[in-house]
């Protein structure tokens, strides 16, 4: 709240800086005798950026670090006997201090020491807030005045603004890239911790998945089996079923949209099809669990087959429907990208529409279609919600789509839901599964991108 208000103030200051920069540039023209290097507004932007950006940066840094600084100060002010507590107990105390400071209920009644710490905390936090205001406003004013003093008709404001904008864009891209790298690294490190406890070969080739481990030493229970093969096969089974649904339907509807549909039908049907892609997957999950799974079971019963109430088939079918728009809209794009002149050539030789599509359009579009299928497949591998709801959690090793199966993503979700200790193999196995999934999807996406790039070159 406080910070938002400060940000608003900074924004206003920048706007003031803009006006001042512009006015001072115009003013220094000496009534038109001196030519400005840039349009007046660039001088305004120059001052505004110098006023707003450094201040913003400082405020962000301050907000990110002040909590940590305040906490360290509070802890260092605590009596020695509390500071001597083990790390987890100490963090409990700190949490209590925060809770009391925020007016919430704490886990233990406040001892005088804690009460004193709360006062220090409130004190310091208040100081940190004031300091943030002070630092932010000072930086803004300083930037504003400094930049304004630079404004002169000969200053290349336009080029400088361009430079600043370039820098801002670079920073944003770096943030995005670093985040990705950070996520991948944390995945790798946590997975590495898992592989210390469980050999990689057991994980990758083991046939039993049963991650329950004894929590207390005296507990009767399995020591946990982390063979991920049932999860991999379940994932593949469901993804394959979904592709069997999505590829034919998606591809044919793409062909229809691109080459058969009259313009009017296309303009209505294509957005409708794309709405499918906008339905939240959890809604598909309802549909799978409440409609498709019972239907599959009853249909199976009529045919004399025994179908689990949550079957891989049901999940695959629903997922296939979800993926249709991926296949169809990507394929539609590549089919449309096949030049009209190819079609004309074929029609001109007396080919019918379907011959033209089969022999000219689809072969020419094949690489792009392959890429769209691969992307759809990797999407299917990563899907969670539908499987949770329609296929269940039973890690059976089976190729029979009528049985209950489960997937990698579902187990990642199941492993991390609820209270978890972050050092048991059970929890860490989620990272190992995530790493495998990430590696496979990444490989598939790279493959698809390569194919698409090659295909682009063909027509340019």
């Amino acid at each position, binding site marked *: 709240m406080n910070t938002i208000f400060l940000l608003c103030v900074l924004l206003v200051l920048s706007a003031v800086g803009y006006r001042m920069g512009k006015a001072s540039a115009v003013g220094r023209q000496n009534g038109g005798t001196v030519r400005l290097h840039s349009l007046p507004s660039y001088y305004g932007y120059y001052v505004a950026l110098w006023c707003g950006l450094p201040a913003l940066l400082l405020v962000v840094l301050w907000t990110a670090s002040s909590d940590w600084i305040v906490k360290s100060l509070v802890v260092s002010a605590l009596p020695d006997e509390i500071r001597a507590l083990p790390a987890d107990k100490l963090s409990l105390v700190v949490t209590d201090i925060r809770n009391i400071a925020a007016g919430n209920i704490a886990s233990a009644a406040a001892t005088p020491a804690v009460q004193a710490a709360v006062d220090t905390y409130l004190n310091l936090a208040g100081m940190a807030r004031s300091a943030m205001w002070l630092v932010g406003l000072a930086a803004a004013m300083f930037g504003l005045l400094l930049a304004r003093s630079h404004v002169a008709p000969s200053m290349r404001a336009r080029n400088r603004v361009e430079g600043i904008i370039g820098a801002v864009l670079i920073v944003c891209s770096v943030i995005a890239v670093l985040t990705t790298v950070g996520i991948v690294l944390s995945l790798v490190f946590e997975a590495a911790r898992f592989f210390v406890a469980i050999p990689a070969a057991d994980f990758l080739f083991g046939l039993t998945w049963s991650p329950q481990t004894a929590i207390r030493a005296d507990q009767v229970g399995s020591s946990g089996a982390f063979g991920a093969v049932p999860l991999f096969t379940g994932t593949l089974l469901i993804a394959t079923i979904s592709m069997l649904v999505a590829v034919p339907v998606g591809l044919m509807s793409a062909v229809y949209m691109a080459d058969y549909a009259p313009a009017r039908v296309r303009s209505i049907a294509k957005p409708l099809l794309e709405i499918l892609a906008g339905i939240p997957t959890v809604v598909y999950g309802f549909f799978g669990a409440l409609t498709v799974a019972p239907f599959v079971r009853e249909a199976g019963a009529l045919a004399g087959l025994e179908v689990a109430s949550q079957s891989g088939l049901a999940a695959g079918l629903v997922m296939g429907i979800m993926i249709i728009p991926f296949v169809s809209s990507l394929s539609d794009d590549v089919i449309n990208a096949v030049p009209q*002149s190819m079609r*004309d050539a*074929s*029609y*001109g*030789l007396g*080919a019918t529409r379907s011959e033209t599509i089969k022999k000219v359009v689809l072969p020419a579009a094949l690489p792009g279609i392959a890429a769209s299928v691969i992307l759809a497949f990797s999407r299917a591998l990563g899907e969670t919600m539908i499987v949770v709801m329609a296929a269940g959690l039973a890690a059976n090793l089976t190729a029979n789509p009528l049985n209950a199966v489960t997937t990698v993503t579902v187990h990642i979700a199941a492993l991390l839901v609820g209270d978890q200790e972050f050092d048991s193999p059970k929890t860490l196995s989620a990272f190992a599964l995530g790493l495998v999934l990430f590696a496979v999807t990444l490989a598939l996406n790279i493959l698809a991108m390569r194919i698409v790039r090659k295909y682009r070159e063909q027509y340019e």
Partner: protein
Amino acid sequence: MDATVTTQNVSGATVPVPMPMPASKVAARGVNVHYGAKHALKSVDIDIRENQVTAFIGPSGCGKSTFLRCINRMNDTIASCRVTGDLRLDGQDIYDRSVDVVQLRARVGMVFQKANPFPKSIFENVAYGPKIHGLATKRSEFEEIVEKSLRGAGLWEEVKDRLDDPGTGLSGGQQQRLCIARAIAVSPEVILMDEPCSALDPIATAHVEELIDGLKSDYTIVIVTHNMQQAARVSQRTAFFHLGTLVEEDDTAKIFTNPRDERTQGYITGRYG
């Protein structure tokens, strides 16, 4: 090529030829074309003679391509396009309901302004038409057709050692001759060429012109061109279009030396300065 061969369509059904031979291969009477509300061709009457080269000339947008595309009904692919009037091929109404467009296009082939070989091998490009019309079944028959067509298009010597290379890898002029080979592989009776040389350099153009001259003994050829010298060099008859009307059609020599209409005169001399 004798009369029975030229009138045999791809399915093998012989079209009865009224004797004596009609003066015209393609006859248009009062042909009008609309694109939506735009009246693109206004009451065109023309007779296109068999085994001759007829050139269509005229300023851009006057309807040359439009008329050309009427003859093999390529305009059918444009939703807004409406063709009325009487247009006959060998006395048969092209726009009759009973006409099979697929067979019509096998009889009336087309070469486009920009060479558009399929992204397939040279061999596959030429064999495409024969394949879809079932003109051959055995590989050896296809090889025969491909060689004959490529020879007919004057390309055989240049590509005979690399028939499996992609057609898109040829030079522009070679690609255009490949497209001509592809068109003649289905043994059409009429070949329509829409500015076939506009993307070619003078040497490749000379090649194609030579080819057109050689082809006219077997085929009836209609060529759209913006190049007056080209029209004068390759055609026997020339038709001048202006703003959607056919202004005049006559022997090429006459059009270029002594046109009847002053618009024709203006267009031709304007080009030469």
